[in-house]
C-alpha cells in the first residue's frame, strides 16, 4: 500500500524543482542515475569515487527523503483519519442516522427485528454519565461500526427481552465507546427503540477472567455493551482487549422470533472483514491512475493548475481508501 501510494506524493517534491518540461527531463535522469549509483555502491563503497560523491549523496538523499515522506504521509494520514477525520465523518453519519431514526420512531416505522437491513439505525443509546448519545446501527462488522455503535445481529434489540449486544469503537472514528470502562454499577443507560424507551442499570464492567453475570430472569432485558480498551501510557490509542459492560432493565419489550442463530466472523468481537480486499485493490488502482494522470498532466500544464484539480481527487480517494482499510482492521478499535 505504501509503495503504491508513493507516486502522487513525489510529484509535489518534483514540482518544487522547476518548470514543467525541465523537471520531467531531470526526473528521467534522476531515476536512472540513482540506480547506477546504487549499483556502484553495492560493489564499492563511497571512497573510490570521491569526485562524484556530492551527486551521489544528493541522489541518495532524494530517494530516502521521497520514501520517508511517503511513509510519513501514509502513516500520518491513516492515523489522522482514524483519530480525527474519521470522527468528523462519524458525526456526520450520526447526524444523518439520527434524522432518519427520529423520523422512523415518530412514524412508528422504526425496525423491531428480528432481521433488519445492515446499516439501518435501530436504536438511540444515551449514557448520561459519559455524555454519550449515539444512534445504533444494525450490524457489527468493521465497516458498519464506522457510522456508530453496531447491534449484534443475532441478539434481540436493546430493550427487548433477552440479552442484546452492542459493539462500539473505542478509539477510532469518534470512539463512541471509548469511555465505557468508566461506567460504574448503578449508572443509567437509556435506549430508545421502535417499541419505546428502556432504562438500563449498569451491572458492572467485565473483563477477561471475570465471571459472567448471573442468568437473567425471564422477562427482563439485558444489554451488553462491548468495546475495547488499552493499557499503559498509550491507553487511549491502543485498544487491544475486549471489555464488556452489562446492564439490565426490569421490564422488556417482546422479542420477535426468528433471530439468526449466528453471525459471520467479521461481525464478532475484534472481527476483521477480509471481504474488503477487492475493494481495496480497486481503490489503490484508482490512486495509481490518479498518479499517472498527474504525471501526464504535468507535461502540459503547470504544477499549480494540475494540483488544484488533482488535490480534491487525491484527498477523496485517500479518504475512501482509508475507510476500506478500516474494514480490514478489528472492528472494536
Amino acid at each position, binding site marked *: 500500500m505504501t509503495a503504491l501510494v508513493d507516486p502522487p506524493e513525489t510529484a509535489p517534491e518534483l514540482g518544487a524543482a522547476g518548470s514543467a518540461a525541465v523537471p520531467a527531463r531531470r526526473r528521467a535522469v534522476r531515476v536512472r542515475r540513482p540506480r547506477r549509483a546504487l549499483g556502484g555502491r553495492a560493489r564499492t563503497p563511497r571512497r573510490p569515487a570521491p569526485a562524484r560523491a*556530492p551527486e551521489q549523496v544528493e541522489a541518495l538523499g532524494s530517494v530516502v527523503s521521497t520514501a520517508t515522506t511517503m511513509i510519513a504521509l501514509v502513516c500520518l494520514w491513516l492515523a489522522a483519519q482514524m483519530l480525527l477525520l474519521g470522527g468528523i465523518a462519524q458525526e456526520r453519519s450520526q447526524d444523518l442516522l439520527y434524522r432518519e431514526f427520529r423520523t422512523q420512531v415518530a412514524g412508528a416505522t422504526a425496525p423491531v427485528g428480528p432481521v433488519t437491513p445492515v446499516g439501518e439505525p435501530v436504536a438511540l443509546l444515551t449514557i448520561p454519565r459519559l455524555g454519550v448519545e449515539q444512534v445504533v446501527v444494525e450490524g457489527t462488522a468493521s465497516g458498519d461500526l464506522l457510522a456508530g455503535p453496531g447491534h449484534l445481529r443475532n441478539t434481540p434489540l436493546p430493550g427487548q427481552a433477552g440479552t442484546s449486544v452492542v459493539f462500539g469503537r473505542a478509539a477510532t472514528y469518534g470512539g463512541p465507546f471509548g469511555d465505557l470502562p468508566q461506567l460504574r454499577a448503578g449508572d443509567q443507560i437509556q435506549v430508545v427503540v421502535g417499541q419505546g424507551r428502556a432504562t438500563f442499570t449498569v451491572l*458492572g464492567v467485565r473483563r477477561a477472567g471475570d465471571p459472567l453475570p448471573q442468568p437473567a430472569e425471564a422477562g427482563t432485558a439485558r444489554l451488553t455493551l462491548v468495546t475495547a480498551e488499552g493499557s499503559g501510557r498509550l491507553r487511549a490509542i491502543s485498544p487491544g482487549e*475486549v471489555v464488556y459492560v452489562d446492564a439490565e432493565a426490569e421490564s422488556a419489550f417482546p422479542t420477535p422470533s426468528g433471530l439468526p442463530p449466528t453471525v459471520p466472523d467479521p461481525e464478532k468481537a475484534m472481527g476483521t472483514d477480509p471481504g474488503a480486499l477487492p475493494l481495496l485493490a480497486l481503490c489503490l488502482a484508482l490512486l495509481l491512475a490518479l498518479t499517472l494522470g498527474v504525471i501526464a498532466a504535468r507535461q502540459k500544464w503547470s504544477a499549480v493548475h494540475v494540483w488544484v484539480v488533482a488535490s480534491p481527487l487525491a484527498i477523496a480517494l485517500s479518504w475512501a481508501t482509508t475507510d476500506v482499510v478500516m474494514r480490514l482492521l478489528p472492528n472494536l478499535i
Partner: protein
Amino acid sequence: MRNLRLIALLCAMLVLGGGLSVVGGPVAAKPAQDEKGKDGKDGQSTAVADSWSQTKEMVRRFAEADGTLYEFTNPDTGAPYQVTVSVDHTQNLRGRERVEISWTGAQPSGGRAADPYGEKGLQQEYPVVIMQCRGTPETVTPETCWTSSVAQRSMISQPASAAVWLHDLDAPAADKEKVVGVPAADKDACKQVDWNGPAYTRVTPFVAASGKVYAACDSEHMPPEAAVDSAFPPAEVTAFTDASGKGSVQFEVRSDVENESLGCNQDTACSIVVVPIVGVSCDHNVPAPTSRQSPTGSASVTGGPTATADPSGSGSPSATETVTSSPSSDPSGSPSPTEDTQPDDGNPMPLSLRGCRRGGRFLPGTSNGAGEGIDLSVGPRLWWSASNWKNRFTVPITFGPPPDACDILDSRAPTGFYGSELLAQAALQWAPAYCLNKKRFKFQHNQMPDQAGFSLMDNGGGAAALVSSAYESGSDPVGYAPTAVTGFSIGYVIDRPDNAGEYTDLRLNARLLAKLLTQSYPGSDLGRAHPGMEDNPLALMNDPEFKELNPGLSEITQEAGAALLSLSNSADVVYQLTDYIAHDRDAMAFVNGQPDPWGMVVNPSYKKVDLPRAEWPLLDTFVPQTHDTCMQANPAPYFTQLAAPVTTLRKIAEALLDAWPNVQTRCDTDVSTNPPTFKLGRKARQGYGTRFMLGVVSLGDAERFGLRSAALETKPGVYVAPTPDSLGAALKLAKQSAAVPGGDAGKKKGAGKTAPQARPTTGPVKYAPYVIDQAKVRRSAKAYPGTMVVYTAAKLANLPEEDAAKVAQFIRIATTEGQRRGSGNGQLPGGYLPITNQGVTGELFRTAQAVAGAVEKQKSAQPQEEMPSAPEVDPDHADIADVPVGAVPAAGAGETSVDAATGEAVAMPQTQAVGSDLGGRLLPLLILLGLLAGALTMVVRTVVIPRSRR
C-alpha cells in the same frame, strides 16, 4: 488472523450464550413446596412371591384286556415321573417379556426338532409343551390356549392309525366320536372335515377374549394373529428334556398388545400351561386276542418303552406302513368311529389302538432334524387329549399395566423427561406409580438421543433430561442427579451346532467389537470384492480370534455375523462403547491400520476413524458388482446394508428376540411382471439352531426379554459380564467430573466451531455427573465396561417453579421408592443396580438428594436489587481483579443454609479473553512510524541534500 478470528468467535459465542439464556429462560422459581411424594400409596406393589414352582406325579397307563392297568413308570426310580416345573417370575409381566421355565424329572425327549417353536416343534417325542392360555388354573381349558397353527390344536380327517385320541383312557366317551369339537355354527364351513368318510377329526376350537369362537378346522378358521409369518413368531414351544430329565426354556409371553385374540392384560387372568408329554394313556375298548400280541407286557418287563425302542413299534415295522396306507387304499373301510378296519397282518387290535400304544421311534437325546414322522401317542400334537391335559401345570401369571396406561387412566397433562433409552424399562414401571397417584405429577419418559434431550431441557422445552454424561449447557447451570445405574451390553443369540442348544457364555474383546463396528468383515463374497479387505475372514464366526475366544461354534458364514446391530443416531451408549474400544491398544492399532495377528485389516473406509464418538457414521460406499439382476437394478452400498443400524435399542432387542437380523441384503425378483419388479428388504428370520446375531442392547431390555449378554474383556484374559456386582465394581471407579466428554476434541457434540479449549459445563462439580474412566476399567478385573449411570439433568436456575417441584419430586421418589427391586408399579426392574444410601451407590444417592434440593430451592437471580452492595469497578485498571457482579448472591440466599445459598448464586463461567494485538498496537505504531519518517525527511532535506549541493 485465524487466531484472532477464533478469539472473536469465542467472545461472540459467549455473548450469544448469555443472550439465549434470557430468551429461553422461563419464569423464575420460588421455593417449591416440599412434597416428598412418599405419602402416596403406590399402585399395586403387593409383595407377591414372584417365582412359581410345583411338582406333579405323572404316569402313562395302558388298560389291558383283562381290565388291569399297566403303568409306565420312570425306569430310573421305578415310580411315576415326579415332574417339578418352576418359573422364575410370573408377576406383572409385560408384552414380549421372557420368563425362564425349567423342569426336572420329566421323561427324556427323543427326536428333537431343529426349531421347537410353533408348528415346527411338533415332530418330537416326549417333549414338554408350553403354551400361554387365558384363564386361571381353575378355568383354563384347551380352548383358551394359544397355538399359532391349526396342526397344533386340531386333528383333521386323520386315518384310523393316527386317531390315537379315540383310545384315551381318561377321555369321556363323548370325545371318542368320529368328529369331535367342531362348533355347530361352523359345520358347513369346515370343508376339510370328513363328515361321512372313514377319517377321524378332533378339533379344539379357540375361544378368543372377545368370546368369538374360531373353529380351528383349517387356517381360515383361526384367529388373525395365527396367520403364517405373522408379525410375531410363534411363542408356544415344544421343548425337549435331556437325558437327566431336566430342561429349560425361555418362554415369551404375549399381552393383548401383541395378541388381541388371546387377550391377556392387567385385568384378564392368564396362565402358562406346561404339559410334559408322557404319552397318551390307552384304553382297551376292543378286546384283543391274547394269542400272539402282548406289546405292553413285554415292554413293561424290560423297563418301559422309553428305555428301548418300543417293542410294539419296532417289532412290526411293516405294520406302520400298512397303517398309514390303509385309509386311502381302503376307502370302503368301516364307517364305525370306534371300530377300525382290521389290517391284513392278523393283528386283531384296531389301528387306532395300536397307534395309541406306540412308545416312540426315537431314542432319548436323538435329533429329528429332518422332521421325520413320529409316534403320535408320545408326541406333542395331542396335548389337549384328556390324559395329557390332566398332567398339565398351570402357572398363573399376571400382566403389568400396558405402556399406555397413564395416557388412558390419567387425563392430566404429562411432564416430559427427555432422553436416554437406557431408562426405558424402569420408566415403564415407574410411570404408573406417578400417574395413578394424584398427589404426584404425571411422569412421562420420552425417548430420544441424549444430546437432543439435553438440548430440549437446556432450551426450556423440557423439565428435565435423562442423560448419561455431561453436556455443554447454555447459561443456566445444570445439575445431574443419578437416577439409575444400568448400562449396555452386547446382546447375542447364538446356537451351538448340532442342535446342542444356545451358546451361553460369549466372550468378546474390544478388537472384535472394533472389527464389527468398522465393517471389516466382508460378510459374503459380494463384500470380498471390497478393495483392501480381500483376505479378511468373511464374518465373525470365521475370525480366528473369535474362534479362539469362543470355541466350538459353527463356522458357517452368515451375513449377520459381519455386523453388530447398533444405533444410527447419537447416543451416550455409542460413546461409551467406542470409548471402551478407544482404550484398548490392540483395538486402536487395528483401527489405525495395523493388521491383527491373523492378518485381518481394517476396512479402509474406517481407517483411523476418530474414537470415541457418540454417533457411528456409515462411511463405506462400496457397491459390489454382481450378476444378480435384482442387485444390478438396485445398486446399494453393501456394507451399509449389512450394518443397517436402527434408531432405538428396543428395536435391537426385539431383533435379537426374534433372531431376525436387520441385514438388508435381501433382493427378490418377481419375474411374473414385465419388466420384472424387485423387492428389497430385510433378510429372513434365522432358523432355530443356526442363529447367530449380535446387537447393542440396554441392560434393562436384556433382562426384560431374557437376552444373553456377552462378557467383555477388561484386563487381558479377564472377561466381565454385566451383573450387579460388576456394575457396582465399575461404579467404584467413577469420579465426579463436570468436564464434557470429548469436548476437547469438539467432535462429540457435533459443534464444529466450538471454542478451541474444553469449556466446562456451567454446573458446579458437586452436581456433576460421574465419569467412569475406561482406562481404569481396563485395569480392573471386576468392573463391567458397559456400566452407565442415567442422570436426571435439570437446570439449577430459571426452571419454572412447577417444573422444579416436579423434577425434585421425581429425583427423590426415583432414588428411594424407585430403587426397590420388583416388577410392580414404581419398582425397579432387572438390569438396574439399585441406588441405596449405603455401599457403592451411597455417593450417587447423596448427590441425587443434593441435586433434588438444589433444583427445588432454586430462585431466579435478581442481581439488580443487590447492585448497591456490589463493590465498584475500577475502570482505570484493566488488569484489576474485579469483584464480579455475577458472584453477588441472589436475593433470598441468606435465609437458607450455606448449601442452598451456593445452589442459588450460580457459578458462572469466566469471561473469555478476546483481544487483538493488531488493534492494540496499530495506532501507536502508525503515529510513531509517521513521525519518524517525517523527521527523517526533514533531516535529509535540510541537512544532507543542501550539504551535498555545496
